[in-house]
């Protein structure tokens, strides 16, 4: 399932629409990195509200995206992690170290804006 990426000012918003295969996640990673470069984006929000599972591959891909886009000068915020997903992530031993997280899209954008201010943009 393709993840649509929306450009909103300095930011990109990727809203996951359902279950994703490992290939879908890898495609999302490539597409986001290329889009950050071509739009000179300052930040990316990935909305995982309807993602059915956050397994080791999904968590690792999200962490890789955070590292890659940071190398291009942008920050990543993951929004919409559901309570049961948080529970399973902790049981599985997964962390999203180095990645900002926020409750929803609005908070995520606000977080990117304040991060940009702190970095003197």
């Amino acid at each position, binding site marked *: 399932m393709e993840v649509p990426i929306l450009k909103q000012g300095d930011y990109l918003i990727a809203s996951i629409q359902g279950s994703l295969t490992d290939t879908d996640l890898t495609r999302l990673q490539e597409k986001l990195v290329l889009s950050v470069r071509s739009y000179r984006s300052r930040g990316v929000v990935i909305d995982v509200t309807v993602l*059915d599972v956050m397994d080791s591959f999904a968590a*690792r891909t999200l962490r890789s995206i955070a590292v890659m886009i940071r190398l291009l000068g942008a920050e990543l915020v993951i929004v919409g992690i*559901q309570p049961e997903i948080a529970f399973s992530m902790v049981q599985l031993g997964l962390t999203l170290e180095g990645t900002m997280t926020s409750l929803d899209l609005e908070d995520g954008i606000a977080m990117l804006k304040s991060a940009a201010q702190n970095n003197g943009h």
Partner: protein
Amino acid sequence: MDADIVTISADIDVMSARHRGRELAIGLGISGSDLTLLATAISEIARNIVQYAGIGEIEFRTVTHGGKRGLMIIARDTGPGIADIAQAMQDGYSTSRGMGLGLPGAKRLMDNFEIVSETGKGTRVSMIKWEQ
């Protein structure tokens, strides 16, 4: 006893297996975060099949014990097998591109977990989630 088998040979099958597992678990009265734990564990062991064995299958069985119903998941492959299971069950151990959380992680997510493997013959993981 109901049996239900999903062939696992590509990442799309990993997704189908976790969907099937969730569907069957709902039918057994398993609910809430247990469904997510179950689907996540299926995702991990199904991915192991694709990564290490290339092809295998996941069987779903309804089991009962002491008046409680549960969903048993059996993952089988005839791949290279695991030489040192104790090591594979340690957090952080991985020989492929995984993060080494697959097997020990799946064990923590489920109520029962068993693994049998023989080098050159394959691996069989069976795990159960019981209704609350």
